[in-house]
């Protein structure tokens, strides 16, 4: 029994990794091989799929578009959430608790609810099909999330830190930037990560609010499936590349996220 204790975790990891492996496997195959039969690894190993993505502008601009609006959104969300979270964590004001809860309720509606109003609004004011349009739309969900996460981290910093800094001769802005922010880097990291993640995987709003100039990669992928036949190898390669940024970001914040969980805010 004891000699078999590695078995369950191994099975679990295999189970988790299987779809990712299959995607990777497919991305190195030709479409014909994928459709032709079952093989555990590529028999005709090819990098053509990746080559196509990195050279064909209709493909790589998809990534650039996605990254652009995701980064804009993350920056806006965290920047807007920092002062808000500070206010919620440090001051008592009329209706503060209700407002804080209401922030969360914003996340309870599916994004589809907001697709139509955003579409109409952005078309009317000429923001349709721009990166900033998608970035702003995602703020609706990401700012409350970031406020919620940051508030937890900020509240775990004692108020006396602020007070000591004032007594020691720092003004509020100086304190906030030079002492407070470095103290809650973990929180900023976690908040940024979640904003990044949400914005990166959100498809519906991103697709509705763009047509050509700001089209996200996920939209490019669905299009290819319907127009020029089945380019399964190409799609798998695109899928693999779509996982990369998320995996990359999560690598950097993995330790902070555990702390976020401990604070009950992730």
């Amino acid at each position, binding site marked *: 029994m004891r000699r078999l204790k590695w078995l369950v975790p191994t099975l679990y990891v295999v189970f988790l990794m299987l779809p990712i492996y299959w995607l990777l496997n497919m991305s190195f195959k030709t479409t014909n091989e994928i459709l032709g039969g079952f093989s555990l690894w590529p028999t005709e190993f090819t990098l053509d799929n990746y080559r196509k993505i990195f050279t064909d502008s209709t493909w790589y601009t998809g990534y650039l578009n996605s990254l652009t609006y995701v980064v804009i959104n993350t920056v806006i969300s965290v920047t807007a959430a920092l002062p808000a979270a500070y206010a919620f964590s440090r001051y008592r004001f009329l209706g503060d608790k209700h407002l804080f809860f209401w922030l969360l309720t914003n996340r309870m509606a599916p994004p589809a609810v907001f697709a139509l109003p955003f579409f109409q609004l952005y078309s009317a004011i000429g923001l349709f099909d721009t990166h900033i349009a998608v970035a702003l739309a995602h703020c609706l969900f990401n700012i409350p999330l970031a406020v919620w996460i940051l508030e937890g981290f900020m509240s775990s910093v004692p108020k*006396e830190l602020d*007070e*000591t800094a*004032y*007594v*020691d*001769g720092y*003004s509020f802005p100086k304190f906030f930037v030079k002492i407070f922010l*470095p103290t809650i880097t973990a929180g900023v990291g976690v908040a940024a990560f979640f904003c990044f993640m949400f914005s990166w995987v959100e498809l519906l709003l991103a697709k509705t609010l763009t047509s050509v100039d700001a089209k996200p990669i996920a939209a490019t992928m669905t299009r290819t499936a319907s127009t020029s036949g089945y380019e399964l190898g190409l799609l798998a390669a695109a899928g693999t590349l779509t996982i990369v940024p998320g995996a990359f970001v999560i690598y950097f914040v993995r330790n902070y996220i555990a702390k976020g969980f401990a604070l009950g805010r992730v």
Partner: protein
Amino acid sequence: MARITLETLRHSYVEKPGSDVDWALASLDLEWTDGGAYALLGPSGCGKTTLLNIISGLLRPTEGRVLFDGTDVTDKDPVDRHVAQVFQFPVVYDTMSVFDNLAFPLRNRGVAEPAVRERVTEVARMLELDGLLARRASGLSADGKQKISLGRGLVRSDVNVVMFDEPLTVIDPHLKWVLRSKLKEVHQRFGNTMIYVTHDQTEALTFADQVVVMLGGRVVQIGTPVDLFEAPRHTFVGHFIGSPGMNILPCAVDAGKVVFDGETVALDSPPRAVPAGTLELGVRPEFVRFAPDGIAVEVVKVDDLGRHQVVEVRRGAHAIKLIAAEGEAIPSERPRIAFDPRRARVYADGWMVEGGASR
């Protein structure tokens, strides 16, 4: 350094304070002389921390003024008041080294780097932090962090006042003693005005020249430790300071005589008139003794504490404690006790009746 005057200070955390309970500080007039070592003593929630925060400028009082050397600073920010404050729990700037933490208040005031170095080294040596100066502050134990907080409070020599808000709560007992004597030493060496908040009477009495006792947002007594011990102005002071606390017994005043449970108690100068309010007789256990001609009681229990014995006796429903010398025989047959006529006092609604007793 400065003389700090508080004029009719009141503070409330409630928007529109109505009744008495809304006031965290209910009218304070206080003067802290320059270079004094003060202890601010009182139970939790009596307004000690509020008072400190008002002096340092973190809180703006609802009413009243704060004066430093006669200059009104009520509207000034903490930065401009030149004070130092140490809180109950360690506050360190995590991202900085121990040295930078200690140097922080100096650098913010534009002190030249050689002077910073000299001063930080001196304070670090005093607090036994000299080996850790290069370390990052975040990695230290709670003790170490609190020493940094203390060091930051002491590093500037030009502050008006240094305030400690129960600074030794997180510190190990043996180190507590060491740090307390260090603070005392610093005070004697630099002569800063120091205010030390605590709810531990030993700490207060060993640290301070003057003890300010607060209760429910009011100052009930200011005095030397000896004053507080010998002439508590309020039953709370009598009860709070001293171990065991003062005996507080119901009494009546009748035609210049103080009567406790049917027995006349001799006082050097009893109240001339009958004071209004609930009357109580306060007498410290140290000033109660067994006497053959005293009030008849029964002995409940005797605690031998080595240097002295604490004897608990009963008179009807009233428990009375008294301190007997080491080895003193406790009478077993019909014990009687007497109160020291110079030290027993009459209190009306908790407050000592003026002129009721004199030394």
